């Protein structure tokens, strides 16, 4: 399916899905946080989409807007197309339902995002820090992260 057609088809799935046009090369949609697992499950199971693999999970800290953007990259082996699904959550209370039940690899990808951004995943079976020690304070990839250890590059 072509990029535009795919984007339109995904948007027709549900009223909680809307298109996102900032992406350069692939179809992208915005999904409401509460509807995420259901939508991704349907994207996986419906044969015209068949997004079998969760390739990647990224978070972006939009500090000016007070939001985190959570991006899920999906890939379909059958139709050979990519889709990026975005979820916006407020920075103060970043919560989103987990995708572990749909794509098991999400368990660790979400742990990475929790570790570095502090996004909380509802119902996650094993939400722990992944890279940093359990007693680390703060979430280092947030734009406002500070600690005494980091050095700024001399200009």
């Amino acid at each position, binding site marked *: 399916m072509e990029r535009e057609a795919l984007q339109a088809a995904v948007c027709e799935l549900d009223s909680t899905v809307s298109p996102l046009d900032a992406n350069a*090369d*692939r179809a992208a949609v915005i999904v409401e946080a509460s509807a995420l697992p259901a939508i991704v499950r349907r994207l996986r199971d419906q044969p015209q989409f068949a997004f079998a*693999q969760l390739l990647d999970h*990224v978070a972006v800290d939009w500090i000016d807007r007070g939001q985190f953007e959570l991006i899920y990259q999906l890939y379909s082996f059958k139709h050979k197309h990519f889709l990026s699904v975005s979820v916006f959550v407020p920075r103060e209370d970043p919560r989103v339902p987990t995708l572990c039940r749909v794509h098991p*690899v999400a368990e660790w990808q979400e742990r990475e995002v929790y570790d570095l951004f502090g996004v909380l995943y509802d119902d996650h079976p094993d939400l722990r820090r992944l*890279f*940093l020690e359990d007693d680390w304070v703060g979430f*280092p990839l947030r734009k406002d992260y500070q600690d005494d250890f980091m050095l700024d590059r001399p200009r």
Partner: protein
Amino acid sequence: MTVEVSSLKELVEQASGDDRSPDTQEYFVNMGPQHPSTHGVLRLVLKLDGERVLRCIPVLGYIHRSIEKISEHMNYMNCVHLTDRMDYLSSIMNNWAVSKAVEEAAGIEVNSRIQTIRTIFAELERIQSHQLWWGVLGMDLGAFTPFLYGIRDREVLNDVMEETVGARLTMNYVLPGGLMADIHPNFVHRVKEFIKYFRPKLDEYDDLLTNNVIIQERLRNVGILSPQTAVQYGATGPVLRGSGVAFDLRKDHPYGVYDQADFEVPVGTIGDSWDRYWVRVEEMRQSMNIVEQLLDNIPPGDFLVKKLNSKIKIPEGRYYSQLETARGILGVFIVSDKKDEPYRMHYRSPNFNNLWCLEPMIKGDYIASLIGAMSSLDLVIPDIDR
């Protein structure tokens, strides 16, 4: 809906105690972070019943160097150099992935000479990476000779590439807009000589390891990864292909000049360690085929289409590019806010996703199988942790 944040200690305490059989005692063993067969500083917390592995919990972070944070304070030209240090055995492919993303974002068309040279180097490096993996796999399974063979041939190829690139490991050869330098006049000739040298050596590899009974016993029907599990657990590259899913970005979404080359994608059948082994050995042959086809008609042209300065700015938006490294799909995700530094830079590393296949692969099997299975995943730990 609950959110619970636990720690490793709690997890271990929870996990001990359940499914205990009456006459054995279960215990936890730490494997790593300083262990010769974890290829670096991976730590596995193993729950054992006798010699059987009941759980295998990877603990990461022993080489988490915060590359993504550093990248946010670097311009795009410098970001490229950090990627060498992630998956250092696929350094040129890593450079290429970032360069590709930046080029697509900034709208730079590179000429076919650059594309061809990049493709040749990527394939040579794939061979190099697999040579090292082959040697180390032998060493993990208790044979030292394969290591010597692998390193010996790797050095031969290393010399050929070093003549052009000027470095042995962290090559920094590909940069946005082209290449660091043109190929050395001797390059084509020496690569041909290398292929002539290495083809019989690959048969020697087969004699030494592939057809060896001990190796077969330790790899066959061990660490079976079904295609469904492989897809669900995010595996790509030789691990996914070993399970029988013929997915290769070079074929399915060609980049560079892979569409001009005629090559096959080896796939396994049942997804055991042996299939993954075989896929990689076969990939070396295919890579040599690709290089041979491209070598004779490298088109003329410049090796740098546009000299980009360090202040290069790319338009606002998100950019995603991916390519197939020696271990799977490397994805580069850039969010730009019109400055000369990325707003957010993320790497989808193949090893990070491949690692999670380890537990479903070896659950209930012996520790000795774990070593073979882990070796067949070909993990590079700095790429997992970034």
